[in-house]
């Protein structure tokens, strides 16, 4: 099983991943607000956040993430596109958009392919199912 690994220390906030994702899914149009990955800036760092499986209830994990001396709200970085994250709802239809991994073979996950810094990469993880 593959997953996308995010290395926020490399991310420069260029938002190519958002572009790639929206171009890949809309084909004739660009709209970062319909992308299933979004780059959020928090305490002067960029965090690419991918919209995972949506859940019906608000997630109740509330933990803080500490990087260096700064404390981050884990919700900002959490991958789950819970229904409370309006940013992952299609602005026209209101329905939740979710990462579909765009297939592992070519064209491959568009965001990973287009990320110019290597902040996004593909990683193989053992499957437990």
């Amino acid at each position: 099983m593959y997953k996308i690994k995010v290395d926020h220390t490399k991310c420069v906030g260029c938002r190519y991943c958002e572009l790639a994702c929206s171009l890949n899914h809309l084909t004739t149009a660009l709209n970062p607000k319909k992308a299933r990955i979004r780059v959020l800036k928090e305490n002067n760092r960029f965090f690419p956040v991918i919209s995972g499986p949506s859940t019906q209830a608000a997630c109740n994990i509330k933990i803080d993430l500490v990087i260096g001396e700064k404390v981050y709200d884990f919700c900002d970085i959490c991958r789950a596109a819970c229904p409370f994250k309006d940013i992952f709802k299609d602005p026209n239809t209101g329905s939740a958009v979710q990462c579909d991994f765009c297939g592992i073979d070519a064209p491959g996950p568009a965001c990973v392919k287009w990320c110019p810094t290597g902040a996004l990469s593909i990683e193989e993880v053992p499957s437990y199912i």
Partner: protein
Amino acid sequence: MFGWTGKILRVNLSEEKVFVEDLKPEEHLDVLGGRGLGAKILASEVDPGVEPLGRENKIVLMTGPLTGTGANSGSVCAVVTKSALTKTIVSASSKLYFGAELKAAGYDGLVIEGKAKSPVYLDIRDDQVEILPADFLEGQDTEATTFLIRSGFNDPWVAREVRVLCIGAAGERRLPLACLVTDGILVADSGGIGAVFGSKNLKAIAVRGTKDILFNDGKSFIKSIAEGVKEISTNQTLSSLSSFSSYFVYDNLISKKVIPSLYFSKPYEPSNGLKDISAHWARERGCFACPIACFKLDNEGESFPELDAFIALGPLCGFEDPALIKKAYHRCLLHGIDPVETGAFIASLMRLNEMNVLEQGAFRPVFGEESSYFELIEALGQGKKEIVGLAKDVISLWEGVGYAQNFIGVRGKTIPFNLNYCPVLALNAITHSWPTSSFDIFAYSKKDPKVKDVPAVVKGYQDTKAALESLGVCAFLSLGGNLSTLLFMLKAVTGLEWDEERLLGVGETTLKIEHEFNQKAGGEGDADNLSSKVAISGFEGLLSAYYQLRGWS
């Protein structure tokens, strides 16, 4: 036509009304969009003789057909107005995300006119556009302003996607040094515009857009983006820009003695090299759809000054510690004061103190002395007359003591380089529509031209920069990008099949509109007093050859 939304917003602050107007791009192909269209609109609606801070001056914000489309480095929104600092037309480049967001909200640009009765900010969320009271933002620095505007959104994630262009307290006080800041990054060339925002009681513009951007030929466009990225990553100059930001010309400038120190009294001879500066860079930051990512951030994620600001706040004032210079730069950004002018102002005071011509009781800073330097930055940002004196900008500081000829710059704007060592820089500084120091690294990207070629080289730089900024593309791309790739993108996005000549013609037309505006605006004229200070033999000849090339008198 794709590439343009075909809509602009006219914001009348006096009446507190917003109108949506149609824009027919076919009628403006002579200037395309961005900087060119901004200049065209300003010149047609504003009398060049207006007071920059008067009610009649307007601010035109304009994206280009490639802004926000995903075209490489297509991040630029031009901010065009008559500057309070230079009294000329000026087109600042707001990069990062603001322009792309405005396009996604469904507008090619904004025309801001009149003056609000009390402080306001403009809130654009797609079709919902409101002029909102900004009392709660009064006196706030640029960071707090952005934060407070975002706090008004219920959803914290949506709030993070709101892009804010704002002024600090200095702009509210209409100080000519005031500039614009967007998301912690200085808007290039915006010194002199912050005060215009302030004069209209406009504290900030916040925008979030969720609309689709459509293309004439999506498939080819996607292909051309990928090609553009490849081109950028394999180009040597752009790679050095990416690795070293504007400092990629640093060693060259040092060896040519172009970097001044102690208010231009001698060339800067650093005790350390570029390595000691770059040691302070922890991370990088890029604009929308730009793989170059030329902004440098320190450990805290705060932005490191561009080279021109580094010079003005550093060696010009007698400092070389990058950490100290970065700290000063950050203070400037928070106050919303132009770092180059701020550095030059303080360096001037230090020099005047040395010359012993300051009035009795005046604040007396000394080159390389830290506490008075930081005290002055705060005082400038807050407009404290008891410390900085009556002068509001660098040129009036020198004029006030009767040494106007010692001011180094053009039309009231400091050029933080020893121009005598570089004819290209000198000619550009004097002839560009507004004096710009952020543009100067272009002069170092290529080999020194033969002296007789200087006018043509300068004209070429200027036309290319103006053409790119009219497309909505960052001018840095011209250091190594191919015009043909941009033309291909233009075609894929809009359907326009253009050649290089036509594109550069847009640059030429833009400069002509700007030049005519400045001529009618009057003032000291191009020669100002700089050309008399440039000790380059045969410089007058270069100047007239340049004018001849342009067909200007």
